[in-house]
Every structure is written in structure tokens, then in C-alpha cells.
């Protein structure tokens, strides 16, 4: 039996969590968190194959969470797909090249989400591992 991959979805918008969960459930097991600290806790405690992470969240934002993950041996190998609704934020994400593996600008095409998520799960982290602080 094929091993079912697990995706952690971290987004503060419950509608987004719900709809993405339903879409990704077709092929993956999906766990979700409404904020970054909860997401970090889940990432450390479970075997996660991909984290889909929103940038803008109250409290700790997605970039900070990704940064913390990269410093943690338990989570540094998990590929991260960042979701952003901020125009021009792609440049910042690109600048932090070692922290985020892929990004999507909201509202994105679901096929694109599917392709990128599948690619990261199958291929693992697409960029050299490291930290934002490197």
C-alpha cells in the first residue's frame, strides 16, 4: 500500500483552510493550523511532507515561522510552499532564497497549487538547505 503523504496547512482564514483541505484531501492527508505557533508545534510533533504556509497571519507571520523551522533540526527538511496575497512580496521571498521552496500569489490557479505541492512532495526541498540567517 502506498504511503499517504501529509500536508500541513497553516492559514488564519478558515474558509481558505477548509477549501484547500478539501482539494488536497483528494491525494494527501491534510492537517491544518490557524496560526504559526500551532503550525510549528504540529510540524515538530508529526511526520509532515509539505507545509503550505500563509505569509500574513496575526501574531507570528509565515516568514518568521519558516525561519524558525530552518533553524530546527526537526523541521528544516520539510519543504515549504508559501502563499502570499501581497503584491511585490515575491521579491522578498526570492531574496530569502534558502527559507522557502516555492511560493504562490493569491488568488492562484488551483492547478498551479496542485502541481507545486505535488512537485515538492515528490522531489523534496527544491533549494539548498540552510537558514535565513546564513
Amino acid at each position, binding site marked *: 500500500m502506498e504511503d499517504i503523504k501529509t500536508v500541513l496547512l497553516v492559514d488564519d482564514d478558515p474558509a481558505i483552510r477548509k477549501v484547500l483541505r478539501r482539494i488536497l484531501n483528494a491525494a494527501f492527508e491534510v492537517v491544518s493550523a490557524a496560526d504559526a505557533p500551532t503550525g510549528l508545534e504540529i510540524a515538530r510533533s508529526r511526520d509532515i511532507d509539505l507545509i503550505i504556509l500563509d505569509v500574513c497571519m496575526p501574531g507570528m507571520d509565515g516568514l518568521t515561522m519558516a525561519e524558525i523551522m530552518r533553524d530546527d533540526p526537526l523541521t528544516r527538511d520539510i519543504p515549504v510552499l508559501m502563499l502570499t496575497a501581497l503584491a511585490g512580496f515575491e521579491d522578498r521571498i526570492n531574496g530569502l532564497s534558502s527559507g522557502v521552496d516555492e511560493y504562490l*500569489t*493569491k488568488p492562484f490557479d488551483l492547478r498551479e497549487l496542485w502541481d507545486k505541492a505535488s512537485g515538492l512532495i515528490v522531489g523534496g526541498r527544491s533549494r539548498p538547505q540552510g537558514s535565513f540567517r546564513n
Partner: protein
Amino acid sequence: MNEKRNIAFGHKYESVFCVFMAALAFLWRDNPNLIYPQILYLFMSLLGLNLAAGLTLRWWPAKPSISAAVILANCAVITGVLEYSGGPGSNLWVLYLLPIYTVCMFLGGREVAWVTGGVLAFNGLFHALNEPVWNDAAYFLVALKSALFLFAALTTFSLAKRERTNASRARAHREHLRRMEDEARGTERKLERARRLAEVGMVTSGVAHDLKNPLLVILASTELMLSHEELSEDLRQDIRRIRRSAELCRRLAVDVLGGAENKSFRPEPCRLHDIIDSALSLMDSQAARRSVQVRRVFADGSSLVSAQAYDLQRVFLNLISNAVDAMPRGGTLTLRTRRYTPRVRGIPVLEACVEDTGGGIPAGVMERMFEAFNTSKPPDKGTGLGLHLAKEIADRHGGTLTAGNMAEGGARFILTLPLLPEGERAGKRAAAAAAC
């Protein structure tokens, strides 16, 4: 204009002088040196010729020889004045300076030479015919007068030429200043528009940003709904319509925010007829509510163009929406396409017309139709950005967007795009793009 005013002033002074001389001739009519009334008639003739010279300068500015001929006739009359005011001893020989002054002020070097030569000839001839005795004094007098006429001609012409050059330079400076003022006003208007665009951009960016999450939910949810096999075809169509609208909103949000997708222009082969139909399907209920009938008159054959389909859909949504708004009491909306090859560029193009039977475009609106924030709609109906963006999209696609009124009434907007050759591969790609 200034030249004409100078001519009028110059001749006015001369005319006043001629009237003054005629009045003197009348008052001193008993003077034995004056032969009255001939002298009076001659001064009147001088006045008439002076006015005639002024008129020829105005009517035929490009033919200075006519004016020079009239001024030469002045010289002949002045010779007559000398004859009737004491002969060679008359003091009125100074009147010869009048034609010299006139020609120097208003005509060119060649005419000055003619008239000055004429004055010298008339003066010489007059003395030759009327001097009782030709002695040294007579020769000296003729030579002195001739030298004086020559000197007057040279100095006056030189001064007049300098004055004309200065006036011409001043005119050029004024014209330059006027152009600079026009440019400054234009720049000011552009800056004001840019400022307003920036202000609106900030507000719309905020709104567009907040729309992104709900749009994502709509798009994802409709996709999930469409995955259910038991849906009826009607419901499926409704969901697809919601999806198309949400996709358009998504695109608008991306454009407003100036996102990466907007910066990169990635045209693909697509069929313009499909795009028009897609825009029509989004507007059909609005048209029906206004009792607007829709006519499609599409050219047979290919409508393949290289474009970003969403951009063109925005253009047609805007044009169709404007056309429907222009017919509040109903009418006919015609979407017409035709292919042709313009002579200038020689590249086949596809022309798409959006025509309405409304009141047409007012003349004042037409000139600034495609400028940002120029709208004839109430504030709650339009931002004045639609046509501006539509024109930008047309330009970005290497096409044109023009507007005009039809002879039979109503407005017509014409979008012209370069036509792609209908190849098998291109057709397949377009079909694939349409399916997406």
C-alpha cells in the same frame, strides 16, 4: 499680424502727413509759388496712392513688386508737386524722402533699390528739364540731393532691417514661450492625473488585496462543485459562469496590485470570437434587463490573434458595458468583426466593432475619451479608468482602439489587432487555451 499692424500704422502717419500738406496747400493757395488748385489735387493723389500702397501690401504681401510700382507712382506725383510749387527752387523736394521711407520700412532690398533709383531718376529728370541754366551750383544741388536720397535709403533700410530682425526674433521668442507654457500646462495636467491615479491606486490596491482570499475561496469552491458528477447541466453552466466572473475578478485584482502577472506580458494564440462570446455571456443578463438586443456579425474564418485572453475580455466587457449604459431605453448592440489588410503595414488585421444605437459620443467627450478619469457617467457608475485601461491593453497588444459616432446614430468603438496565420498547431493551442 504684427507686420500688418506696422503697415497700417506706417501708412496712417503718411496719410496724416499728406492731409496736412493738402491743408497747407489750401491755406497758402494765394502763395505765388503754388499753382492752385493743381497742387491740391496732387496732394490728394499722393494721399490716394499712399492708401493704395498700404492696400497692396496687405492684399499681395507675396508680390512686393506691385507695392513698389505704386510707390514709384508716388515719386511721379511728387515730381508734379515740385512742378507746381516753384520748380527747381521748390523746397518740397524733401517729399521724395516719403517713398524712400515707405519702401525701406515695408519692402525688401530689391524694391528699395528700384524706388531709390526711381527717386534719383525723377529728381534728375526734373532738374534736367526745368533748370534754366546748368552751372556748377545746379550740378552741386542735384548731386547733393541724390547723395541725401541714397544716404536716407541706406540708413533707413539698414535700421528697418534690424528692426524687422529683432521683431522676428521677438516673435520667435514669444512663440517659444507660448509652446513652453503649453507644455508646462500639459505636464501639469499629466501630473495631476498621475497624482489622482496614485491616490485611486492606493485605495483600489487595498480593496483588491482584501478580495484575494474570498476570490480564492470562490474559485476553489466552484472547482470542487464542478467535480461532482451528479450536477445537472444547467447548474454546471451556472457554476462555470460564477467561475468565469471570479477568474476575471482575480485578474483585475492582480492587475490593480501590479503583480508579477501584470508586469510580464505573455500573449498566447487565442480566438477573438471566443473572447467576445465569453464577454457577452457575462453581460447578457444586464443587456436583457435594459431591453438591449444583441447582434453578432462575425467574419467567417479565423479570428486567431496573439493576446492575453483575460485582457481582451476586460476590453470587451468594458465596451459592451458602456454600450448597454448608452441605451437606457433599449436598443441594439452589434458586435461585428471583419478581416482586412491595411495598405500601410501590409499585415492582416482583425477589426472588432462594438456598436450601439444610443445617443452617441458628445464632441467634448470625444477628444479626451481615452484619458484616465475622463468619464461622462455619474460617479457611482464609472471611474473613468475603463476606456483608459482598454486603450492601454490594445496598445500593449500592438493594436489600436478608436471611437467615433456613426452617421445613422450611436457610437462605434473599433478594436484592431494583428491577425495570426491559422496554422494547425496555433489552432490547437488556441483551442487548448479556450478550454482552460
